[in-house]
């Protein structure tokens, strides 16, 4: 493992779209010109003050940014250790951090002159965010969703339809997020001249991991400023640890990135432990070297859960948004560099955390975010009362009520 202590000069990806050995562009040739066009458009937009001003305006006047941080006093006291601060992405318009990236990319779509977007969704949060951005900007929107996920996230399916999106069920493979991405990419290959693929996580071929990270980094920038500022409800200091759940890893990379150069801040990603690592039914890509190895899935090189023959493994998580066989390439790289660490929470631990946050703080978290809370429940008691943990509460849990009712009644 490489060790780099100075992250103030961290500049990834490289010119080939690589984060060390991870990332790249593993797609059919038909899509390569579209990726090159997207990269060019993004680089121009990134340094265009007018684009950034428009995005900021929408963040403030439409999304409701900055989202606050909340000092979880009762939870902190209950756990008897570190002071826990929640970054309230659940309060962002449409209910999760996904809107940050959806709006950013939708503005890029306008700039590129395309009129149609396709997207995949697992938990439905990215699909809802994309449908929302498409409605706001008047762009046609098709969302692909595995039929298993449609069943467990029915309210979000209805939301997308209300917002004017067409939701197409995907019946292939495990009928979850991975299969929805396959179908979205197939649609994109076929309609690439008029269509943009609005990928929702820090995954996929270059430049997606980078532009999703950049659009989501608003989370970490705000949280860092708020923690340092007592007037914003912060403790007036940097946190000792930042904790976030990791499916593809977009909320985690967004909250981690602005803290990379802060040496004393531990960055902890929490994967879906499902029914436990031993069971084989999980989505903990960093925790199970027996089934998770370096590979390529859906355009990017990273850790991939697969069998000995390189066929992609089925994954399981109680939360649809974490139920994916690979993980964003930059997470793999930050882990190699020793800058972030990854652990997991099982379905049962996430459900217990879900319940505890409801009861202690009056906040119903998304099941995805509950995985991060589950890690905080383990971590906080080991730390002193003056220690600070920031946990990214990436989304709200209304969409998960049916699942939770089934699981814990």
């Amino acid at each position, binding site marked *: 493992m490489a060790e780099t202590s100075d992250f103030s000069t961290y500049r990834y990806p490289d010119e080939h779209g690589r984060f060390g050995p991870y990332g790249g562009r*593993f797609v059919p040739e038909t899509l390569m010109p579209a990726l090159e066009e997207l990269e060019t458009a993004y680089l121009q937009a990134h340094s265009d003050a007018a684009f950034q001003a428009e995005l900021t305006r929408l963040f403030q006047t439409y999304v409701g940014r900055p989202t606050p941080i909340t000092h979880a006093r009762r939870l902190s006291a209950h756990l008897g250790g570190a002071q826990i601060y929640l970054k309230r992405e659940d309060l962002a318009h449409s209910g999760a951090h996904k809107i940050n990236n959806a709006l950013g990319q939708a503005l890029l779509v306008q700039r590129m002159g395309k009129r149609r977007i396709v997207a995949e969704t697992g938990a439905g949060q990215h699909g809802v965010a994309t449908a929302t951005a498409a409605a706001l900007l008047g762009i046609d929107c098709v969302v692909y969703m595995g039929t298993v996920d449609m069943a467990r996230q029915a309210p979000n399916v209805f939301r997308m339809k209300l917002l004017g999106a067409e939701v197409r069920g995907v019946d292939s*493979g495990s009928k979850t997020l991975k299969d929805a991405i396959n179908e979205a990419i197939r649609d994109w290959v*076929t309609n690439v001249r008029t269509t943009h693929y609005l990928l929702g996580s820090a995954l996929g071929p270059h430049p997606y991991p980078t532009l999703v990270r950049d659009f989501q980094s608003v989370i970490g920038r705000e949280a860092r400023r708020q923690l340092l500022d007592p007037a914003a409800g912060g403790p007036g200091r940097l946190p000792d640890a930042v904790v976030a759940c990791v499916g593809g890893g977009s909320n985690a990379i967004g909250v981690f990135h602005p803290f990379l150069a802060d040496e004393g801040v531990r960055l902890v990603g929490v994967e879906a432990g499902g029914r436990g690592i031993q069971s084989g039914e999980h989505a903990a890509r960093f925790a199970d070297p027996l089934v998770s190895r370096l590979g390529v899935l859906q355009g990017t090189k990273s850790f991939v859960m697969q069998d000995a023959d*390189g066929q992609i493994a089925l994954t399981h998580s109680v939360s649809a948004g974490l139920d994916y066989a690979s993980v964003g390439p930059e997470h793999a790289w930050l882990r190699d560099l020793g800058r972030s660490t990854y652990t997991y929470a099982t379905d049962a631990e996430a459900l217990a955390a879900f319940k505890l946050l409801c009861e202690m703080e009056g906040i119903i978290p998304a099941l995805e975010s509950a995985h991060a809370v589950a890690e905080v429940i383990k971590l906080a008691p080991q730390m002193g009362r003056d220690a600070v943990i920031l946990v990214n509460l990436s989304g709200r849990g209304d969409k998960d009520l049916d699942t939770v009712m089934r699981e814990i009644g």
Partner: protein
Amino acid sequence: MKRTGVERIQAAFAKAQAEGRAAFMPYQMLGHPTLEASPAIIQALAAAGADLFELGLPFSDPLADGPVIQAAGQRALENGATVERCLALVQELAAAIPHIPFCLMGYINPLLAYGLARFVADAAAAGADGLIVPDLPPDEPEAEELSALCRQHGLATVFLLAPTSTAERIRLGVARSQGFVYLVSVAGITGARERLPDDLAAFVQRARAEAQRQAPGRPLYLAVGFGISTPALSAQVAQIADGVIVGSALVKLAEQSGDDPAQAVASFAAELAQAARRSPDGRGQAAGLS
């Protein structure tokens, strides 16, 4: 001296050209519809006039493929068609039909899992002649690694070009391909279509001009695939390209033809191969397509 895979591929195209036709290159998914029927179908296709073969290695998440080849891959996996079993089938076929070159088409992840160096060595030893990896563009470092390995073993690396490819990408794909370049007829995934896109002839012409520009004497052929499902479409493509690749239509027939898929596939393939013979005024008709 034994000819390399690149030379065998070139010879197959040259022979078709000398006979006034486009080379006919059927696709089959190895291990589909069953491990036993798969080699029988491929041998029947050889007898029906195949000049080269494109043989698919199944993958769980084939994002360049339409429903027919997705389902075939899924079935092949259920039949136990691992990379190792597929290479064993290739070895069996290479012994049975030694005069016809085989290009393997497989997605990158199973090849990485097998190990690129080990895969190329074993594929060459089994009798494969070329390699097509649809989710590995020529500019990724892994493509350079694969090309170097293939050169060591005389295997052709074949890259794909699409109607969306820019001049720069056509330059790259032509430069890195050996034996032939795989021209994707249409922006999209594999699967039958009713007609060819209007811009196909112009696209083939752009690729041909680039091949001529780079190395006028180099035997690099242009084969067109994706969506070619009928003898009529095969005939149209034969007027403008050096090779016609037919996949989904034949795979579907193999799936649906009950007890004797080999016979059904072979008789349809014979029609496709016949259609790939050019009309007397040959390429002159290409203009009619554009």
